[in-house]
Structures are given as C-alpha cells and as structure tokens.
C-alpha cells in the first residue's frame, strides 16, 4: 500500500506515512489515506465530482494546503473523496489542479470512523529521497 496509517507521535491523534514516485502520486495517495482514516472507502460511491485549484510558495506548503482543503470540503461541501487525478506545475509558485470523484457524507450507507479536523505541522515533512517522494503528516482529530 502506498500509504500507511500510523500511530501519531501524540497519542490522541493519527499519522500517515506516504510515498510516491512523483509529487502527484504522493499527494493522491495521501488523500486516499486521509479518506481511509475517516471512512471505509469501499462504502463510497464515485458519483460526485469536484475540481480544485490551489497554489502555494513551496511544495511542502502546497501539501499542507491540499490536505487541509480535503478536510474543508468534507465539512463545508459534505464531500468525501474516493479518487483523484491531479497535476502540479511550478512557475513562480507551485500550482495544483485536481479533479476529484467521491460521495456525500451519508451515515446510512457508509461506515464513518472519526472526524479529521486539521493538519498539524507536527513532524510534517515532504522530501525526495533518492527516486522516491516521501511525506509524513499527523492529523488532529
């Protein structure tokens, strides 16, 4: 599995270790891991669609914004991501364009686990080690 849900370094929360050959893969896999922390993914339909565009000064900040955005759309737009396609470009800043498919939150159809509410900077990192992009994040529950 390209991501691993881990014991957070703080005992109250949950961490995620993720790796990918490209930043896009890393971002997509981290998003899938975040979904799995909140809900059983197999219970999600793929019928809702959403496009997102984000930009930030560094790839690491973009990673923070990306995960924060997924938490935001869960609360504000009732949207749980199942799959995503995304592209990251660098000009002056890092720009992300993503196309998401997923489902509305529905406790009758889905096994909802725990509400992830924020991305922490606690040991937050994203880096390229040899040919692999690796990231670590701890979510506040």
């Amino acid at each position, binding site marked *: 599995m390209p991501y691993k*849900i*881990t*014991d*957070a*370094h*703080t*005992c*109250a*929360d*949950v961490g995620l270790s993720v790796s990918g050959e490209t930043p896009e893969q890393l971002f997509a896999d981290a998003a899938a891991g975040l979904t799995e922390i*909140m*809900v059983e993914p197999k219970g999600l339909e793929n019928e809702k669609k959403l496009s997102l565009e984000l930009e930030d*000064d560094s790839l690491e*900040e973009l990673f*923070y*914004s990306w995960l*924060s955005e997924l*938490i*935001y759309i*869960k*609360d*504000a737009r*009732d949207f*749980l991501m199942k799959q995503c396609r995304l592209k990251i470009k660098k000009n002056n800043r890092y720009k992300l364009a993503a196309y998401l498919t997923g489902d509305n*939150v529905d*406790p009758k159809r889905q*096994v*909802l*686990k*725990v*509400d992830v*509410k*924020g*991305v*922490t*900077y*606690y040991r*937050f990192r994203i880096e390229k080690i040899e040919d692999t992009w690796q990231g670590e994040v*701890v979510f*506040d*529950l």
Partner: protein
Amino acid sequence: MSRESFKRLSNNIWEVPIDFKPGMNVPARILSSPELFDSIDDRVIDQITNVACLPGIKKAAFCMPDGHVGYGFPIGGVAAFAKDDGIISPGGIGFDINCGMRLLRTNLTLDMIKPKMEYLLASLFSTIPSGVGSKGFVKLSRGSFNRLMESGAQWCLENDFATETDLEFIENQGCIENADSSAVSEKAISRGINQMGTLGSGNHYLEVEVAPREGVFDQTLAEKFGVTVDDQILIAIHCGSRGFGHQIATDYLQVFNKCMGKYGLEVRDRELMSAPIDSDEGRRYFRAMACAANSAFANRQLIVSGIRRVFRSVFGQSDKELGIETIYDVAHNIAKFEKYEIDGREETLLVHRKGATRSFGPGRAEIPAQYRDIGQPVIVGGSMETGSALLCGTKYADDETFGSSLHGAGRTMSRMKAKKSTRGEQVRQRMKDSGILVKTGYMPGLAEEAAFAYKNIDAVVEAVHEIGISKKVARFYPVLNIKG
C-alpha cells in the same frame, strides 16, 4: 533525558532550570505526583521547555498533572505572555479552540431514571448529532452566524436556547470580548455554519452521570454547587468549536508561518508558530480565536437546549420540575487577557491554557456571585468508563499557576494501540456489566476511548488537590454515554 538537574520545589512540583536548554527565558514547572512524574514522556519535558523559550513569557511555563504530548505546547500546558512584548500562538491554544466542559445538575436521581435508561440514551443519541459530517439542528443565516460568533452564548439567550441563569454560569458569561467576524475566513464560516449544536467525534462525549454520597469529598462545596442528594443525576458535555475553530487555527498557522520572519521570531518547534500580541497578525488571530471560543460556548449551550428537550419528552416533566441547571461551563483550550502581579506590579498578560482549566479562587470578580466566596468550579473529564470530577478553584492557583489547573485524565496510549488491545464490542459489554450504557456511531471508536488509554483520573485529581491549585469536591460516575 536526564532529569538530575530538576529541582524538587515540593512533593508535587519539579522545576526545570533555565539553563536546561539554550534560549529558555523562564524555568518550566512540572506539577505531578511522584508516581505520575516517572511516567511523564520526555517529549512533554521537551515541549514545555520549548514553551519556556518563547518571547515575553512570564514567571514559568507550567505543565499540569494530566500533561501529555501535544502540538507545540503539551496538553496541560499553561503560559502567560506580556501584552507589550509577548506572543500569541495557536499551538498554545489548540486546534479545537475552546474545547471545554459543561456540567449540568438535575432534580433526578438514579432510581428515577433507571426504568427509562435505554429510551433516554436512544433519544439523546438521535437528538444530539455526533460523528463525521454531522449537522446541527439550528439553521443559521450568515448574519446570524456572525452574531453568534461575536456574542457567543448571548446569541442562544436571544434565540430561546438559553436562560439568563445559564449565561451567568458560563466562563466569561459565554462571550469573549473583541471577537470580530471580519477576522474569520470564508472557509471557516462555511465549515462552521452547519455544525452548531453538534458533539463531534474523537474524545468528545455527552454523559449522564450519578453522584453517590460516598463520592462527595467536600459536602459544603458540593451543596454550594447544587450537588445535594445521594445518587443525584448530572450531565457532562465535552466538546468545542468543531470545524470552525479548526479552520481558524489552520488559517492562522499558515499566516504565522509566513510572517514570523518579519518579526524576527524563531521557535524551536514549528507548532509553536507565533506572532507578537501587539501586531496586526496577532490581533487578528486573537479576534478570530475569540469568535471560535464564542461559537464553542454557543455550541455547548445548543446541546444543553437539546438535552432539556429530550428530558422533557422522556420524563414528561417541565424544565422547572427537572431542574436541569448549569453548574458551570469551562474552556480548556483558550488564551485570555488576565491581570496578575509580576515582580510587585500588576500586569495584563495573555494566559494560554491548552488542555488546562481556569481555577480562580475565592474573591475573583470574574466568577459568579453565587460561587465568589468559595472559588469557581473546575470540571475534569475522565474516560467514558470512569466518569468525571468536580473541583473548586483556589487562591494558591491564582498566586502560583496563573489561576490554572488540570482538564482531564490525560491520555497515555495511542488510538491504534488501544484498538489492538481490545475491541469496541468488548468495551461496550464491559461498560454494560458495570451499569453503563453507551452508544456510538462507530463501534471500534469505543476501544480507542477505553479507560486503560488514559491516566487514572483519581491520581491526577489527587495531585492537584495536594498541590493546592484545586480542591476536590466530588466524583461522578457514568451511567449513560454518547461517544462522538
């Protein structure tokens, strides 16, 4: 980590000296018991001594007996900063701004609710929304939400979700001053507007508890707080500002991340990102943080309104007959301006309490007139299997810890480890065997919140009582629990 240089100030207070690590401006003080002290994670020591390095910090950085690893500050961390050259840090407040406790008393006793326990639990569960993506029963316009975040529980009074007595018994009467909705992002508003009146998830809960006579430590204080009858039923609510507060914390962490260089601020941990109190960014964060704090006061009040509705329906009695009254409502993730004497001079300080409760002693004007001769109630939430405790603030806390005390039992085991140790169904059965009915939307979550994942609440309560920063009043035991 060697603890040899720590100075034992008393049986329950250890001081980490200022030369423990470079950059400390004040010592750190660990409040604990000898038994609990040995089990404190080295990372807690590292975090509280990082706090001691922050600019403008006064006197000492404190860690309460329930302290455990957090982000930036440890949970249980308390620090006060000078208004003119100190900082404000989201890491000293927590993502869940004004996470706190509400404690209600009733005229009911255990025998009176026993025949209706299952029905009462089901009714509470269906009325008070909890879990991922839950939506509140109050539909708010944008204008109403702005009013709610600027006025807090006052909004509930204006809209018939509160009584004047409720407001009197909420910290700051349910409203932190200088809340300004213009400091809040559109994102935070759209996350929060549909969540008012919801419990959330994780360690948040609603609990119906019983107060047996043998659990009362101080009869006079207990009676003053309205705990007067053997096996009296009380209700505890633990929750905060939901996604609204989290979005505000996220927004301002990103703002502070970019502005710290401008102010020459360097911190030892990114989660301690800060801005000067006296800066545009710092002032805006305080105003937004106050909005989140007010929304949390209103959120708990809306839940109280739902609870009253359920009890009226289940027991067929009026509010007056049921006597569901607020004992107190405390914030345990917050920063507030308070006055303290420093080096013989009164100063206004911004006191950060992260997983710590205000514990003002007798005579403080900030506490309700009814409690002013004894001190404020300090409500301590334990695990869902062990119940909670009611304590009373002291002058010693005012003098020594910026009027602060503990907030809960304090977690010791990770969620994943707890889930590996037991199953949710086993916890549910064990609780049932002990006379506690529990309901949740996600059964494995019960394992995460099992009693063994927390410190012993009696040990941490005993520690603060011995130190003198709060006085034991009574222990309450759960009979019904809704785990968010």
